[in-house]
């Protein structure tokens, strides 16, 4: 039985650009899929197809048990969408925005009003609830946008880069909200350019590039694919680099690298923290003084680099006020770095 979100061979072209080139996804009910990829990878296009905003050229997608092309209205009843750019009416207050969305989800006016109050409280916007959202900071607007997506407590949620451009404090706030949402049983598809974010929030990660899913698995599986852990040692005395390398060779699982300039030796190992203690003991026994030693596990950055040959993160972070106000789907003007 397919999951809460299921896609098979999605293709979407815009003129010459093949934005989606056969995307397959399967998200089990109650789990979180992180769609990870650089600018222009096709994340937003995927979300737009799954939320009935775009019709795919080929392929098929089922969300909450309904086909997105054949039964878009049934899909819309069961999803919440928080798009790439906060989509709230800047001249309405936070409360009016939420109430309007509730009414358009076919709630009664009274129920919509009550739900708006609840959400403002929950998203720490109660004090600002009666101000036009024009006066909100980027982080507040983001929170309101997310609240609007949660008006009917939809079983399936889509969030397109929910924390891009936010400062660390707002990012943490949103992460907490997302975590409690997931704890409540919501199925979530989240796109992000931040590897850290996918690592923290997602059960499964699908790495997309050029409109294709190029790797999938848990964060740990992806890291294991890239290669295991490594020990890094910085030797105090350059003259003892040779001795230290000799010692580390004994633990190495593969090729080690020695950087003369930084006096750093890196060797692939297996055995974790226990092994680290042994390395330290042996170096000590040979009279090698060390400045730094660490067990390094691959980050998702390493994963991305090894999969695609380029680094994933391109945008600068922490620009709370500098909310990008470009085209709603972030079209056209995006270039690959």
């Amino acid at each position, binding site marked *: 039985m397919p999951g809460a979100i299921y896609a098979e061979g999605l293709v979407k072209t815009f003129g010459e650009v093949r934005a989606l080139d056969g995307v397959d996804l399967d998200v089990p009910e109650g789990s979180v899929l992180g769609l990870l990829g650089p600018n222009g990878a096709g994340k937003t296009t995927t979300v737009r197809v799954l939320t*009935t905003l775009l019709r795919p050229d080929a392929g098929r997608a089922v969300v909450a048990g309904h086909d997105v092309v054949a039964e878009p209205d049934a899909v819309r*009843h069961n999803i919440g*969408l928080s*798009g790439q750019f906060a989509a709230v009416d800047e001249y309405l207050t936070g409360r009016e925005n939420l109430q309007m969305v509730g009414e358009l989800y*076919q709630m009664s006016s009274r129920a919509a009003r009550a739900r708006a109050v609840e959400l403002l409280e929950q998203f720490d916007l109660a004090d600002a609830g009666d101000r036009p959202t024009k006066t909100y900071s980027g982080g507040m607007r983001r929170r309101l946008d997310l609240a609007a997506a949660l008006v009917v407590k939809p079983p399936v949620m889509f969030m397109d880069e929910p924390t891009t451009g936010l400062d660390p404090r707002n990012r943490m706030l949103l992460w907490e909200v997302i975590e409690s949402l997931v*704890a409540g049983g919501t199925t979530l598809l989240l796109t992000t350019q931040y590897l850290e974010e996918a690592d923290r929030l997602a059960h499964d990660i699908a790495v997309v590039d050029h409109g294709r899913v190029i790797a999938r698995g848990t964060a740990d599986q992806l890291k294991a694919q890239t290669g295991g852990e490594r020990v890094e040692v910085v030797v105090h005395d350059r003259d003892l680099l040779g001795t230290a390398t000799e010692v580390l060779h004994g633990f190495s699982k593969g090729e080690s690298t020695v950087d003369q300039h930084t006096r750093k030796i890196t060797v692939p190992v297996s055995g974790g923290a226990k092994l680290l203690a042994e390395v330290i003991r042996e170096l000590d026994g040979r009279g090698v003084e060390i400045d730094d030693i660490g067990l390094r596990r691959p980050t998702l950055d390493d994963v991305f680099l090894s999969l695609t040959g380029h680094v994933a993160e391109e945008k600068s972070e922490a620009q709370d006020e500098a909310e990008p106000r470009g085209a709603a789907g972030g079209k056209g003007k995006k270039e690959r770095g």
Partner: protein
Amino acid sequence: MTATMTKPQVAGGDGQARGALARSVRDSLVVARRNLVRMLRIPEVVIFGIIQPVMFVLLFAYVFGGAISIPGAAAADRSAYREFMMAGVFAQTVTFATAGASAGIADDMHKGLIDRFRALPMARGAVLTGRTLADLVQSAVTVLVLMGCALVVGWRIHEGLPKALAAFGLLLLLGYGFSWIGALIGLSVRTPEAATSAGLVWLFPLTFMSNAFVPTNNMPTVVRHIADWNPFSTTVQASRELFGNQFQPVASDAWPMQHPVLASLLWSLLITVVFRTLAVRKYRSATV
């Protein structure tokens, strides 16, 4: 932030029970209210929307008025032109609401609001219907203020209130049809700035190649035929007759000029139906 979430649930139980038409009406009204609230929060837009036609009234009445002679009126009768041109200014005012609709819709597209609406289980045409209804309210207010000014400079209603109300209705219906053209333009252009000019430029030839400000009898033949069949002229002619601002029967024997009330009604309904269909279809596939 306290974020306790309850178990997700599917919404819309009462939504399904409601009929499609009732849902469509309610959704349209929700969106119309949103647009009206916005207008009240940006009063500059409404105020300039009123100042501009008032300026037209004053310019035409006091600057051009003396130079244009109206068939059937004594050459020295300066109020004749004021009476004659007022229907034209009213009609031009309602059609200029088109630019508001196109700019508003384009802005909603740009800000991602259209995406938000399109992902909601709401009636298909409601976002656009809500917008055009709000524009209709704005046009009604603007025209009423304008009529007040017109009365001050010498314009009069000669045929009684029922006919005057009929003229008012025809003017608003024309504006309503045109705001659907505006909605289609707003969905079709790439930026709100482009929407403002694209919503406006074509209105100038349309409203000036008409009987609105000068009688058509002195126009070159081709232009006169265009003017006689122009939906805008038809509504102007109909209002002129219904307000009683005519000094002699219209010279043209083109069918719309002989039956302006019916012609105006038909034109406006046709424009509404055609452009509503096109705009709603465009909305469903709209991408920025």
